[in-house]
C-alpha cells in the first residue's frame, strides 16, 4: 500500500470527526483519499475543503474547540502559511493532529524532500514526531491522537512523513482493524469546549499580566507530554506488538562513531552502518523520533559511549552555528563534562539524493575531523564548488 493511503486509512481508523485540508504536493494523496472515504460514506466525518492552509488549520482548531476530533495535513509552503495558527493552536491548548509531508521551502520552487518546512516551525509548541517508514507513519498517526487528547497534554501533534521518498512509496504495512484501534484510542473527551449551554471564550486577549503564565503552561504541558507519550507507546506496544522510543539506537554497542538522523534517511543510514560494520568500522546510529519535546535524558543515554557524532541535518539555519539538529545537540551537550566530538553535516536539501555512500562519507569525514579536532560549525555535503 502507498504510505499516503495508509496514513489516511489510519486517520479513518482514528474515527476523526472533522478533516479540513487544502491539497498541496506531496501531501495530496492523503487528503484526496480521505475526501473519497468521506464521499463514499466509509468515514462519517465532515470534510471541509477550505481555500488555503491558513483556513485549513483555523477550521481544524475551531472544530477541536467544540470537541471534535480534528485532522489536517500539509507540507512546505502550506505549512508556512499555517505558521501563525500553529502558535494559536498550541497556546489555546487545542488537541489536533496534522501530518506534515516534509518538503523544501521555496525559493527556488522545489517540491522535493527536506526538513526545512517543519524546522521553521520548531518553536510553535507542538509535539513533533518523525516517522522513518510507512509502518511508523501509520502507528504514529494513531498514537498522535491519544497523546494530543490526553488531559495532561492537550496540545497539537505533528507527525512528519518525508515527502515522496516516504509518502509516495509502496511498502508492506500492517493496517490494524477497527476493533483493536478502538481499544487503543478512546473517544475524545474535551476538558473545556465551546458549548452554548456552558459558555466559555477561547482565544482571548491576554496582556502582560498573563501572557507569561500562559506560555509557561504550554512549556510545562509540552515537557510533560513526554511522560504521556511513553505511556501511549507502552499501551501501543502491548496491543499492537510494536514498540517505540523517543530515541532509537541501531548497532550502537561498541560504536565509536554514531550517525544521528531523523526521518526516512534513517533506513539508508542503517544500511551504511551495516556496510561499514562489515568492513570492521565501529559505527552505529541513533535516530530522533521525538523532536519536541526534545528527549534529553534518552539522548544522553543513547550517546554515552560514543566518541564522535556525525549529525545529519536536512535543514539549514542560515548564519547560525549549523542546522537545527546540530544546534540542539551541541547546546544539549554544552553542560556535559565529557562529550563526543560533533561533526555536523547539512545534506539532502531540496531532495538531493542521499545514498548509502554519502553516509559512509560522512562517517569517514567525522572520524578524520575528530582526530584533528578540526574546528567546524558544519559542512554542507555535496555542494558544487566549481
Amino acid at each position: 500500500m502507498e504510505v499516503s493511503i495508509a496514513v489516511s486509512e489510519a486517520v479513518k481508523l482514528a474515527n476523526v470527526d472533522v478533516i479540513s485540508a487544502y491539497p498541496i504536493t506531496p501531501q495530496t494523496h492523503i487528503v484526496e483519499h480521505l475526501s473519497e472515504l468521506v464521499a463514499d460514506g466509509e468515514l462519517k466525518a465532515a470534510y471541509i475543503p477550505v481555500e488555503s492552509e491558513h483556513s485549513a488549520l483555523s477550521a481544524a482548531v475551531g472544530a477541536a474547540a467544540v470537541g471534535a476530533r480534528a485532522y489536517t495535513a500539509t507540507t512546505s509552503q502550506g505549512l508556512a502559511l499555517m505558521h501563525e495558527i500553529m502558535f494559536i493552536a498550541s497556546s489555546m491548548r487545542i488537541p489536533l493532529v496534522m501530518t506534515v509531508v516534509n518538503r523544501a521551502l521555496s525559493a527556488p520552487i522545489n517540491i522535493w524532500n527536506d526538513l526545512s518546512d517543519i524546522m521553521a516551525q520548531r518553536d510553535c509548541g507542538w509535539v513533533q514526531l518523525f516517522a522513518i517508514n510507512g509502518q511508523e507513519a501509520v502507528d504514529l498517526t494513531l498514537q498522535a491522537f491519544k497523546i494530543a487528547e490526553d488531559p495532561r497534554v492537550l496540545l497539537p501533534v505533528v507527525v512528519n512523513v518525508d515527502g515522496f521518498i516516504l509518502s509516495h512509496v509502496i511498502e508492506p504495512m500492517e493496517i490494524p482493524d477497527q476493533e483493536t484501534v478502538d481499544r487503543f484510542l478512546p473517544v475524545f473527551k474535551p476538558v473545556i469546549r465551546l458549548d452554548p449551554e456552558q459558555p466559555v471564550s477561547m482565544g482571548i486577549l491576554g496582556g502582560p499580566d498573563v501572557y507569561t503564565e500562559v506560555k509557561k503552561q504550554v512549556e510545562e504541558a509540552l515537557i510533560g507530554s513526554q511522560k504521556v507519550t511513553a505511556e501511549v507507546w507502552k499501551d501501543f506496544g502491548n496491543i499492537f506488538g510494536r514498540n517505540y522510543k523517543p530515541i532509537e539506537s541501531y548497532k550502537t554497542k561498541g560504536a565509536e562513531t554514531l550517525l544521528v538522523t531523523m526521518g526516512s534517511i534513517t533506513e539508508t543510514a542503517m544500511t551504511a552502518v551495516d556496510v561499514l560494520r562489515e568492513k570492521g568500522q565501529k559505527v552505529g546510529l541513533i535516530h530522533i523520533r521525538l523532536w519536541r519535546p526534545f528527549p534529553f535524558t534518552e539522548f544522553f543515554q543513547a550517546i554515552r559511549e560514543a566518541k564522535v557524532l556525525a549529525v545529519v541535518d536536512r535543514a539549514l539555519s542560515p548564519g547560525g552555528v549549523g542546522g537545527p539538529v546540530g544546534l540542539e545537540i551541541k547546546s544539549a551537550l554544552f553542560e556535559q563534562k565529557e562529550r563526543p566530538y560533533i561533526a555536523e553535516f547539512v545534506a539532502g536539501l531540496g531532495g538531493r539524493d542521499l545514498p548509502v555512500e554519502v553516509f559512509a562519507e560522512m562517517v569517514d569525514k567525522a572520524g578524520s575531523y575528530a582526530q584533528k579536532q578540526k574546528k567546524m560549525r558544519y559542512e554542507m555535503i555535496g555542494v558544487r564548488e566549481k
Partner: protein
Amino acid sequence: MAKVDALHPWKEVPLGCAILEPGNARQFKTGDWRSKIRPVTDREKCIKCGMCWIFCPDMSYNRREDGYFDWNTDYCKGCGICARECPKKAIQMISEEE
C-alpha cells in the same frame, strides 16, 4: 481580558487562557484611569434623547427610569465624545479636580 485583579499563578490560569465565566468583561474597570476630564450633564438642557448613551464607546451611560442618563465612573475614559455629540450642548467636560 479576564479580571484585571486576578493575577493567577501559571498553574491556575484557565487552560489556554480561556474565559470560563461569561460576561465578566464588566468586571474589568476600564475607567480606573482616564484623561484629566470628565463629563457633567446639565439636566436643565437635557432632552433625554440618549445620544450620549448611543455614542459612548465604553457604555458608561445607563438610562434611568425617569429618562435621564447616569454616568458610570467605572468605565469612562474621558474621551469627550458624549459632549461633542450632545445636540443641546448639555454635556460639559470638566477637569477632574473640579
